[in-house]
């Protein structure tokens, strides 16, 4: 048990280190800005006096490392400073509700995509080179090649036009779960389709790889029933690759969510980020980028821990 805890602690420390460096990059990138924040806010109206005043107000006259640690300390407490575009509004206020919406959408898509993709992937691997496999594989390859907004608009064209589902996913405040699920169905379905394609192909590859290993062949050769080969011998060893596949694709959801939210006008973090990029509202972009990056690192970390736990060979590495 201590070994497990030590492994998890080690991975966590590594994840924290990665996050720390990522935060350095996200903060440091703004230092590349020609001029600085103060000039960016004032634009044409920048005179030496006003620039100096704004600098003092934002604390830009402090040295770099002090500003960084103040920013990081705030970020850890979910205080990301104030927005530039909407002067004086705390960034955390803008993010809080939208974070919930984005998580809801991502979870919704994941709940639909994971079982679907795993079933399709495993079936395609078991019935390799069958008609089912070929059709599933080539449609997945095509779906991967489609831009997210193409899939989204096709769905709008087919499903929203008939009036079955709303093409604008504005969720009214205080809507109950059923209403929310109904309104967010099309964005969730878009994400599901895109992610399923990736996940299915990767699951299929992982399972085929596994079925080619000698102990599976041995089990078959000694006359074991196929169902028992799968359940007793293949499945326990398939956990690690499958968990990896799921985690990688959930991480992929993070970027997919940005485009899909814009298409469906869904009030999530991705849309906030895109709006803030065009307004060059740097504190907001920094905050959202940090949240997305943290989710990404965290997902990869979880996948790493679970696949290590499920594989004794990795646990007892020499």
């Amino acid at each position: 048990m201590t070994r497990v805890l030590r492994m998890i602690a080690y991975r966590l420390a590594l994840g924290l280190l990665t996050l720390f460096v990522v935060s350095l990059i996200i903060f440091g990138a703004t230092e590349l800005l020609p001029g600085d924040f103060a000039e960016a806010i004032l634009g044409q109206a920048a005179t030496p006096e006003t620039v100096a005043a704004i600098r003092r107000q934002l604390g830009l006259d402090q040295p770099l490392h002090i500003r960084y640690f103040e920013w990081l300390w705030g970020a850890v407490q979910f205080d990301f400073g104030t927005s530039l575009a909407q002067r004086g509004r705390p960034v955390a206020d803008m993010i809080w509700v939208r974070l919930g919406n984005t998580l809801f959408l991502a979870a919704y898509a994941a709940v639909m995509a994971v079982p679907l993709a795993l079933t399709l992937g495993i079936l395609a691997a078991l019935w390799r080179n069958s008609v089912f496999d070929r059709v599933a594989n080539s449609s997945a390859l095509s779906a991967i090649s489609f831009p997210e907004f193409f899939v989204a608009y096709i769905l709008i064209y087919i499903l929203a036009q008939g009036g079955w589902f709303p093409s604008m996913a504005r969720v009214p405040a205080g809507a109950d779960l059923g209403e929310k699920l109904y309104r967010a169905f099309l964005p969730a379905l878009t994400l599901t389709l895109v992610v399923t394609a990736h996940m299915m192909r990767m699951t299929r590859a992982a399972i085929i790889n596994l079925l080619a290993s000698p102990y599976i062949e041995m089990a078959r050769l000694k006359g074991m029933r196929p169902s028992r080969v799968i359940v007793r011998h293949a499945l326990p060893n398939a956990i690690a690759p499958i968990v990896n596949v799921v985690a990688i694709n959930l991480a992929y959801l993070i970027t997919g969510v940005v485009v899909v939210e814009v298409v469906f006008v869904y009030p999530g973090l991705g849309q906030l980020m895109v709006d803030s990029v065009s307004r060059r509202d740097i504190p907001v972009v920094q905050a959202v980028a940090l949240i997305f990056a943290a989710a990404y690192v965290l997902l990869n970390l979880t996948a790493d821990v679970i696949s290590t736990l499920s594989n004794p060979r990795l646990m007892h590495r020499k």
Partner: protein
Amino acid sequence: MAFLIFLFWAAVALAVAIALSWGFRRLAAAVTRGEMHRALRDAPLTASFGMMVILIYLVVAILAPLIAPFPERMVVGSQFQPWTAEHWLGTDALGRDMFSRMIYGTRNTVGIAFATTALAFLIGSVLGLLAATVGGWLDQGLSRLVDVFMAIPSLIFALLLLTIFGTSILTLILVIAVIDSTRVFRLSRAVAEGVVVMDYIEAARLRGERLGYLITREILPNVTAPLVAEFGLRFCFVFLAISALSFLGLGIQPPTADWGSMVRENATLITFGDITPLLPAGAIALLTVAVNFVVDWQLYRASGLKE
């Protein structure tokens, strides 16, 4: 009802595509000789479909001003006209000819994506080969740097950098190229690592060859095959990334005709049952599918030859 019509047109498109790619394979095999002839003759239909599409896009991109009936940026009529004999695909949100903009879009969108991929490859493979050949602290430093860059989702990183440097075509190309070069770096370094340990590299080192000679004459020829296949895949990713950014209004800026932003500008039409805005999106999808098909075939051939 819309769904049935959609299914019908999808089936028609599939049948036409199969017939065309079969014809293209016959034609391509007839005009080539030797090794090329055998490869093309035995190519699967998907691959010949891919090659046909890429060829068509190339021709359209090169001959854009000759094919397009109207100039790229000219307002030729009222907004959102339906499909007519004069304006084949109607007009867009500002009254520009959709068909002409689609044609010019081939040149702009594909050209920019290609330039970006080439730049990403230049940066990534030079640094990757250098890291593998020199080793030591350079290798460690570059690899850890790339690790950290790859810990940030690429679209998010691109958005962050575009906020800072502003949105213009040049910054777009540079930002995407730098982000994608990290992936190229990984691959080229990994492939070159396998080559660097070979005896003939050792011999070349002992002969006292310079670094430039080692990389260009000894290592590069042995790593081109995987890098070429990767180029196709990278192109797809870059192309999709640029289209996504343009769609978000942060990539290629108007009035330049570009498929991603054309979808964005005319998206309202879809809710009225007009499929025109789907066409540029479809054009993006078609090219990506085509490149994927060809890369798949090449990878299959490369692995088949080894066995």
